[in-house]
């Protein structure tokens, strides 16, 4: 699978050619990667030894190495296609179904049916994994339907509401 990896203003076109094998510009390299604890990994790349942590926050990925935090963007071909399509469709997109990104408990609904929301506005708080996760409006528009109530448990990908 081909990926575009962005880290610290650098972009790498990486090709995951097999189990822990990655190529860049045709140069294959075997990576010895082992998980440690708390999202940390030990990676031997060539002979070089790295220990780093990976985590995700608000949908963005971060890599922590020697106490430095690097935002990490990983896009595969589909993502790139989708992000391209999104750009094309942005103007014409008229509605969006908001799905639960993970199973959890709806702890707060911050909008009402008929209300108007801005893109990026927090519309619902989903409690999952002992955390409160803000669910944000992907587009601006009117809230046309709300399909859940507060304190309701929802499955992953169940539709929470529709905007537009």
């Amino acid at each position: 699978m081909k990926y575009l990896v962005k880290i610290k203003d650098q972009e790498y076109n990486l090709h995951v050619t097999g189990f822990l094998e990655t190529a860049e510009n045709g140069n294959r390299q075997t990576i010895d990667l082992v998980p440690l604890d708390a999202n940390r990994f030990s990676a031997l790349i060539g002979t070089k030894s790295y220990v780093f942590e990976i985590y995700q926050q608000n949908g963005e990925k971060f890599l922590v190495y020697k106490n430095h935090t690097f935002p990490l963007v990983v896009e595969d071909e589909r993502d790139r296609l989708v992000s391209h399509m999104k750009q094309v469709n942005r103007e014409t997109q008229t509605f969006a179904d908001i799905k639960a990104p993970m199973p959890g408990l709806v702890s707060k609904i911050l909008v009402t049916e008929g209300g108007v929301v801005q893109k990026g506005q927090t519309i619902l708080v989903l409690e999952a994994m002992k955390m409160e996760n803000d669910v944000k409006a992907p587009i601006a528009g009117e809230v046309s339907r709300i399909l859940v109530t507060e304190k309701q448990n929802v499955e992953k990908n169940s539709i929470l509401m529709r905007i537009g």
Partner: protein
Amino acid sequence: MKRIKKVLVANRGEIAVRIIRTCKDLGIQTVAVFSETDRKSLHVRMADEAVSLNGVKSSETYLVIDKIIAAAKLTGADAIHPGYGFLSENALFAEAVEAAGIIFIGPSADSIRKMGDKTTARKLLKGSKVPLAPGTEDSIEDLTEAKRLAAEIGYPVLIKASAGGGGKGMRIVHDPADFEKSMHASQNEARNAFGDSRVYIEKYLENPRHIEFQILADQHGNTVHLFERECSIQRRHQKVIEEAPSSVLTPEMRQKMGEAAIEVAKIGTYYGAGTVEFLVDKHRNFYFLEMNTRLQVEHPVTELITGLDLVREQIRIAEGETLGFEQKDLKINGHAVECRVYAEDPMNNFLPDTGMVHLHRVPTGPGVRVDSGIVDGMEVSVHFDPMISKLVTWDRDRNGAIARMCRALEEYTLSGVQTTLPFCQFVMKHPVFQSGNFDTHFIQNYFKPEHIEIDDPETIQNLAIGGLNAIHWFIREEKSEPSLSGNGAEKQGSLNLWKVRRK
């Protein structure tokens, strides 16, 4: 002489843990007190006994004299150690403790009153051989009068809280136009931090170094100093890096300043451990700044160069023992550096960060000491100071101590909040810091967030490759085990990319 058998530690975090450690060394029983958010804290776990203070904020817990004394009575503690901050420089607390028939491990209430209050101390020292920087004698409330005095002293001036320490309530004013705003800000901060809004004004020295002397005095009139600590690396007027000895003091200057520090203690009829802070200007003139009538955050650097345990000395003094040594018995052995590890984001103007500490692995090995009150799974909350730990290194010389600090900082693993670790690494590797020739403006003069970035191309590329493969690992794990849920909880060290972090 009364041997202390059980000490209640009226504090939290690393200093509570540090005091408990020495009590254990001495075979003294320990009592922790805690706010509700600190229930899982290390000081509660390590103490022999622990009593809840039933509340969350410091104003409901660690600052409530009655609750602390009640806890001491409940557990039969015969002494109270106040640590630093909170009630440590509160004369009323020292009095209330003594009135309850409990030993206060610290100076007398009288000394706290005299020396803990900066304006009182300055008045007492006037006429002594201790040099004072120009400034107001009394704390000042009236804005017009304050402005007049500031003009008289000459800009730039410093507005400081009478009650406080640690840079809280401190403002530098360069321009008379900013005076009013700064004074209000200072008063507000002082009120919030110390419950006392009084401020005073003094001459602001340019390019100053902050150098302080540790003193120890027993109840029988013996006073020594344990040399100096260099504390010039500060952000927001708060120390972040300290070392001992200072790289600018000559033996002659050390002797003169040490004698002045002892003089300050004697004028304050002081006993216990205390610190006399000086500012040293670019002409190597020194001026009395203030006295801290308690243990300092940075006391470990002094411990490492003298081999003394300052908490042990405090306890022995409180028991009425005499110091077992004289000034001539004390020698500086090697060099020590301390980095304070704060939950602050150095990339973002040292904004305090909060959250769960997932992983806290401290460095060790030759010449490394860590004083910490945090462990895996604890929250860094908004309620208390964002200092996580103190990392201290020692070696036979300054270069060695700095090299060990660089190694220890790299080895230090803390996950969950942003910390000042990379910033400390930046300072240690900076040629100006390494030269020893810096002042309190080091950070504003030399530090920019981008300076602490890692940008070796091979490293960045390998992190991209490693990061991508790690994400692949998560995806593979998730796909191959759709019902990972079934025994997910049982997997030792099991990982999940999607679980982590929130603010």
